[in-house]
């Protein structure tokens, strides 16, 4: 049989190598939607990893993206790509003796960071525990749906949980496409154009801090925040993972604003600053207060410090 084929002059014109090549190209071209195959789709399809692009490439990607967002949301977005400030490593402090569980931070974050309203995504989860309870043991079953007339409820305390910005982030280790990584200022970021939505990172995160866009994110046009960062609060796509970025679009400015959750907190329980600056508020907390980090035994080394001021 094989001998016969070899002798056939017509079979020689398609050897195995060119057959495979042709098939690959054919399949690849099928993967691109033809109905909308304008230049923008091609560019998005072949967009490089954020850290592999040079300044010109980033500029052209931002230009294309701003146009896409303007078409889709009818809002002029300004997408920043501000890099980390030198000599800065961000740290966060949360005073558990002050938090009253009012959830102002949850919704300030939703608004600032363009989280999907439907399906609902919250980057901050506030847990309620009973005072005196061995809360570490019941951490995973803690009540996050409490809804009394007024907070704080008698005999309870509250613990907001969001991305802990680990120095040793398990989510980064498991990402098969390197779509998430730790920046020099310690913020763990996601490139939404590189995320394939496998959700390994969500399984790896011990804090439940990562959230998946199960549907196309929906936000009322009036509530969009047009001041966005490429690695932060720009509108997400269906099927990508997102998380807290310490408000990268605010904190990386110089002078840098506080994250939205810090600014809204009515009891001043949230502290933020530069861990490398001995004069910063966060350093004062670490040096003078009783601090702990969540699930420290996992060696994730979070830069999110819970403390008791009294």
């Amino acid at each position, binding site marked *: 049989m094989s001998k016969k084929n070899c002798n056939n002059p017509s079979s020689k014109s398609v050897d195995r190598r060119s057959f495979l090549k042709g098939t690959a190209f054919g399949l690849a071209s099928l993967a691109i939607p033809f109905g909308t195959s304008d230049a923008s789709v091609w560019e998005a399809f072949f967009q490089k990893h954020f850290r592999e692009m040079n300044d010109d490439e980033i500029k052209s990607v931002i230009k294309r993206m701003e146009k896409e967002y303007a078409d889709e949301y009818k809002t002029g977005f300004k997408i920043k790509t501000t890099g980390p*400030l030198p000599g*800065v490593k961000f740290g966060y*402090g949360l*005073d558990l003796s002050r938090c*009253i*569980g*009012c*959830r*102002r931070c*949850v*919704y300030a974050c*939703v*608004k600032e960071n363009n989280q999907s*309203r*439907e*399906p*609902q995504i*919250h980057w901050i*989860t506030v847990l309620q525990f009973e005072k005196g309870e061995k809360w570490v043991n019941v951490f995973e079953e803690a009540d*996050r*749906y*409490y*809804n*009394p*007339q*007024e*907070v*704080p409820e008698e005999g309870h305390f509250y613990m907001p949980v969001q991305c802990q910005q680990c120095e040793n982030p398990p989510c980064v280790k498991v990402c098969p496409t390197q779509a998430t990584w730790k920046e020099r200022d310690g913020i763990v970021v996601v490139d939404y154009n590189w995320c394939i939505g496998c959700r390994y990172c969500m399984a790896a995160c011990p804090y439940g801090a990562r959230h998946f866009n*199960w*549907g*196309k994110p*929906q*936000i*009322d046009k009036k*509530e969009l925040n047009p001041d966005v960062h490429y690695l932060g609060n720009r509108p997400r796509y269906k099927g990508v993972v997102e998380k807290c970025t310490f408000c990268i679009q605010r*904190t990386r400015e*110089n*002078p*840098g*604003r*506080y994250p939205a959750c*810090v*600014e*809204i*907190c*009515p*009891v*001043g329980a949230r*502290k*933020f*600053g*530069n861990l490398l*600056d001995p004069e*910063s*508020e966060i350093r*004062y*907390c670490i040096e*003078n*207060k009783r601090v702990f980090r969540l699930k420290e035994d996992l060696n994730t080394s979070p830069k999110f410090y819970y403390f008791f*001021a009294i």
Partner: protein
Amino acid sequence: MNLKSLSKILLIVSIPVILLLMLSSYAASADDTTDYPVPPPPFSEGIFPCSGCHAGMEANTNRRELSFHEDIKLKHFDGWCFNCHNPGDRDTLRLASGKIISFKESEYLCGQCHGTMFRDWKVGVHGKRTGFWNGKKEYRLCVHCHSPHQPGFKPLKPLPPPIRPEDSKYKTSETIPLNPLDSIKE
């Protein structure tokens, strides 16, 4: 006297007047003579300056139910008005040492008893800070969050809890829920 010398005198007189005016306007604009950058104290509307009413009144140093300030119910320590207010000039406060301070720096008054809080407040750990993490920060006076007469922090209504996964139904309707934060006015 001729016209020339008159104008000379006018000029000489006007220079210190202009200088004084400039100085006074500078003092008015640079009003934050306080040690920490704080917004103005949260007075009830129309209540300040106290001397508006109290100027002609004799200070009654007897402890009693107040007839005019009936909204003030003191639930602080076992103290009363003149532990903090200055009987000599009601537009100011008086420390235990006898030092007179303005309402704009009332943190020194609170700090007399609440020393550890005052220490933490100074470095920005007790209380709310806004502004910039590596730049100018805005402080708040103790009395912006704690009523000096009833300092306990008032309970708040919590914003809605997250939707339980089992109750979540993804719908592409035009009724996208609005942010509940917008409905509260504080």
